[in-house]
């Protein structure tokens, strides 16, 4: 089998010397959609931060596209094509929608900036109408679309989406998952981090379940869906 796009081996990381992740092993293949599921506080966001260099690993390895990114800076990780769309969106509220998208290509794919902005406006028509509006004036769902659009501007090889459906109305959640399906259908590998188990397992090929900083279950989405232990793990019973 070919090497996976992303492979994480024995990753330990946390805050101020306190480990949150206690030896994580996961992998994502090229073009694959992989879900990371788990209840609130199990360490999903910490995993994403470690992958994008915001939190330093104290042990383990992060291999991406043949390079060792364990010690890499956030900027170098972006340059390598591993793009993290964070929980809470973290868009730039004092800048316009267009400027937010432009900054998505600050470090990578700058040469394609113009075409890619046009492409984002095609994927997210609502952003086009508001191109010159300050991003802080957008609704929650629109901000999430902008955050994903900003991530796509870097032409990622792997897109990490941290709880993209969080705080959205049920109708918008549906729309968001449709969008992710559409993006993934173009062959983009996604690491989808969610609490929304049912919908995530609909669109992912495989999934990992995190509990208390460790992977406790993994497998194909199909198998996990029918696994009675999933609900237990998820509810922490």
């Amino acid at each position, binding site marked *: 089998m070919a090497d996976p796009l992303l492979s994480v081996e024995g990753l330990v990381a946390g805050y101020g010397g306190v480990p949150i992740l206690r030896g994580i092993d996961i992998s994502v293949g090229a073009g694959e959609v992989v879900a990371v599921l788990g209840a609130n506080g199990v360490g999903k966001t910490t995993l994403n931060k470690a992958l994008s260099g915001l939190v330093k690993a104290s042990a383990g390895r992060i291999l991406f596209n043949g390079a060792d990114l364990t010690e890499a800076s956030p900027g170098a990780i972006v340059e390598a094509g591993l793009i993290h769309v*964070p929980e809470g969106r973290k868009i730039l509220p004092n800048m316009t929608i267009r400027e937010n998208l432009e900054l998505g290509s600050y*470090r990578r794919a700058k040469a394609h900036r113009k075409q890619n902005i046009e492409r984002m406006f095609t994927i997210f028509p609502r952003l086009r109408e508001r191109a010159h509006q300050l991003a802080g004036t957008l609704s929650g769902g629109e901000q999430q679309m902008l955050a994903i659009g900003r991530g796509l501007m870097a032409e990622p090889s792997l897109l990490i989406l941290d709880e993209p459906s969080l705080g959205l109305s049920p109708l918008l959640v549906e729309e968001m998952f449709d969008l992710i399906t559409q993006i993934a259908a173009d062959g983009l590998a996604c690491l989808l981090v969610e609490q929304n188990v049912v919908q995530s397992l609909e669109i992912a090929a495989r999934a990992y379940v995190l509990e208390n900083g460790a992977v406790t279950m993994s497998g194909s989405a199909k198998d996990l869906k029918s696994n009675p232990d999933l609900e237990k793990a998820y509810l922490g019973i």
Partner: protein
Amino acid sequence: MLSPDIILAAVLNGLMNGAIYALIALGLTLVYGVLHIINFAHGATLTAAMFVVFIAFTVFGIDPFVMIPAMALGFFGVGYALQRFVVGPAAQGSDNNVLLITLGLSIMIENGLLAVFHSDTRSIDVPYGFSSFDLGFTFLSVPKVAGFGVSLAVALVLWVILIRTDTGKAIRAVARERMGAELAGIDVEHIFAVTFGLGAATVAIAACLLMPTFYVSPRIGNAFVLVAFTIVVLGGMGSIPGAVTGALIVGIIESVSGLFLDESLGQLGIFILFILVLLLRPTGLFGART
């Protein structure tokens, strides 16, 4: 009673001083807006730059206006290196440490200058120092008019950098949403250093504009920065248009109140205004209401 001519002359003179205050305030407000700290070494940087201009003129005969590009680039480099290799690493992520380090730097610079130059005041004698434009009702100093033009041009260039360039957009991004900026691949330490460098470059330009009509002594920078700080609060901490508008207002108030009160009490007007603003509109003229 004062004639309208005299008051108009005072307003014009105030505008010209105000433009140089704007330059000094811009660096202070930019660093505050992005790093969220007050750079206590801002005044000492201005003093040091004025001494460089002084030496360049007295030793090498280079005109202060000719020095502008070299001073801007040189001090940009010094400011960049100071933040990137001294202030940033030594601060270890604590804003309080940054305050102490910049305060320490300013004490070192001032005392170094005192040791070499003593507390004497020095000035330079440029050939156009006393040239003036005759407006009929008053005379405008040529170097001051030039200083006014250069100051506003520099403010405009800074504004264009912030609005149009990727680096400027990165500066605004880091100022507001650090994590979002980092995840876009922006190197925050680099942007902090660029911002610090821009602050140093603006005071270096101010030094070039001040020297033809003013004097330098090892503590002179602080007098200007005190006024600049008032301007930054008046305009709204971190606001560029606020700093420019505030500086012009302060320049006018200082100059006009000097007519009524006495030359030495001109600054009293500024501080009365300062207190009024804090009472009535604590976020300043252009500050965000939070």
